């Protein structure tokens, strides 16, 4: 039961990354007027690839959860305003909407996975 399906562990990482990204976006939005603040974000695709490449054996406990810390870094190439702040409202708003939908997608897929497993377990009776 530690790793019922590979898709499930990928989905778990997917949700974790979306979580982290949402927090970074919230931070960026909160500091849109803070002088000198730089936009932070994670490189979603490469972090997901890195996490799924990590073997599930590298866990502290035996429950199959992958302990994984995504790397948050500054986003290059954004236009900077005179006070040193480079937060772009449109970019943040778009990414937030996208993250919300991504999270919804992940949750729905996870529910589907558990539903299938439970049906397989209880389906005989």
């Amino acid at each position: 039961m530690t790793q019922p399906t590979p898709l499930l562990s990928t989905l778990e990482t997917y949700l974790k990354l979306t979580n982290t990204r949402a927090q970074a976006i919230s931070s960026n939005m909160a500091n849109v007027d803070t002088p000198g603040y730089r936009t932070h974000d994670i490189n979603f695709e490469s972090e997901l690839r890195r996490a799924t490449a990590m073997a599930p054996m590298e866990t502290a406990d035996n429950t199959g959860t992958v302990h994984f810390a995504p790397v948050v870094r500054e986003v290059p190439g954004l236009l900077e305003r005179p006070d040193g702040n480079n937060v772009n409202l449109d970019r943040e708003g778009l990414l937030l909407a996208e993250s919300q939908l991504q999270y919804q997608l992940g949750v729905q897929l996870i529910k589907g996975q558990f539903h299938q497993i439970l049906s397989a377990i209880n389906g005989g009776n």
Partner: protein
Amino acid sequence: MNLFDALSISGSALSAERQRSEIIAANMANAETTHTMAGGPYHRREVVFETPATSSFRLALAATRQMPGNVPGSVHISQVVDDPSPPVMRYQPGHPDADSQGYVAYPAINPAAEMVDLMGSVRAYQLNASAVAATKSMIQQSIDILKS
């Protein structure tokens, strides 16, 4: 790395922007105030936003949060400063606050600039309010995993 942390970050921004708009509203209301309790004309005030200093954002996100105000990434108003620009002098000899040459000192407040500032504050408030709604929806979705 918690959705509740994201909520408190957005919450801190809402609070800070609200305080900022209060300061701006006070500036606009007192654009013509020539005499205050402290003597002299009203001084335009500005707010300075600050985010908690962190050496590395990644380490900060990984650390457990200690106090609600210290969540890395949140914002607060570090100081409210008086605008040091000199007051605007207008020649009004009959005015009760006129000085010996007949000039009255008015606050150096440009209503148009204050209005633009206020619009910026409102826009930031709306942005963070929608961030709160998005985070709330994600928390709701997480709870949904356990349903059915």
